[in-house]
């Protein structure tokens, strides 16, 4: 169905890392959305040139409030502007909600494993928050792979010890002092304990840069996880 472009105003910007930002938009008339869905954001320059890009929603439906996670792409047309230059109070056009494949619905009661690479944590965070808001008792696990501690998103929230969520951080370049796991890319041993806790009907959501998602999906299927239970979203 054609979805309208709506006007949304930037009301808040917060730093997640040195470069990554959480943006909060106010979108009057927003019809709501599911965890995992995204929106298209469109900017129009003075000369009429338009550029649109997709951004995942970081939080479940909450009236007109839309929370996005933006990691600026070097040389990108849209993300650096959204991340740091769009003034508070300024408007963009937003279309959505989009995507019915990479979603988690509170009615799902099977165990879930979320595997996030860098900014891929954004739509998975919407799932974490939706799971918490629904007071769901289905087992939820999150593995968040980042270069170093400074690259962690949602540090305070994910470090808070939510009993409904099992969180593991994995560092690819620099592990913090005292880490039991040496820095390095995601490997089979990282997924083994998590997969043991997924029953045969468990669902895995993998999101992040294309290379990360494809490597993770390969590790999962090699470990015996049914490909039909794995949902992926590649950010590029």
């Amino acid at each position, binding site marked *: *169905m*054609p979805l309208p472009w709506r006007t949304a105003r930037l009301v808040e910007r917060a730093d997640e890392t040195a470069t990554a930002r959480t943006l909060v938009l106010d979108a009057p008339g927003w019809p709501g959305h599911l965890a995992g869905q995204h929106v298209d954001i469109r900017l129009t320059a003075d000369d009429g040139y338009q550029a*649109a890009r997709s951004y995942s929603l970081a939080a479940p439906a909450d009236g007109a409030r839309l929370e996005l996670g933006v990691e*600026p792409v070097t040389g990108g047309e849209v993300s650096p502007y959204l991340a740091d230059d769009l003034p508070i109070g300024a408007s963009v056009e937003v279309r959505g909600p989009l*995507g019915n*494949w990479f979603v988690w619905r509170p009615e799902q009661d099977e165990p879930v494993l979320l595997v996030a690479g860098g900014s891929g944590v954004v739509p998975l965070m919407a799932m974490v928050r939706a799971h918490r808001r629904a007071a769901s008792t289905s087992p939820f696990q999150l593995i968040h792979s980042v270069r170093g501690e400074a690259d962690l998103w949602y540090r305070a929230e994910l470090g808070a010890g939510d009993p409904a969520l099992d969180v593991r951080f994995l560092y690819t370049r620099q592990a913090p002092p005292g880490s039991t796991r040496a820095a390095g890319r995601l490997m089979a041993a990282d997924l083994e304990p998590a997969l043991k806790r997924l029953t045969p009907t468990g669902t895995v959501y993998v999101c992040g*840069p*294309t*290379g990360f998602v494809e490597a993770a999906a390969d590790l999962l299927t090699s470990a015996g996880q049914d490909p039909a239970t794995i949902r992926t979203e590649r950010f*590029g």
Partner: protein
Amino acid sequence: MTEVSPHVDGNSLAGPLSDIFSVDMTRASWRCPGCGSTGPLAELHVYGPEPGLTARCADCSRVALRLVRNGEDTWLTLGGAEGPFRFRTAQQAQG
């Protein structure tokens, strides 16, 4: 520095295809006529957005769908790489 990979996936087509199809096409399943691999459109490899969006088989890169839009026209190629349908959508009519 964030590395930019050459492709994303069909989840990114949800918006552009919402102007054309009355169903959510990202969940449509597709069997590649070249290599036989199957899966939802959401998991095809998508290249673009310039000069348009090209969705390819994740295994053999055969073109599944191509979508090009300029200000007034949409060109949609379904399967194969030739013979686009050309039309205007309601979004474009509104300007």
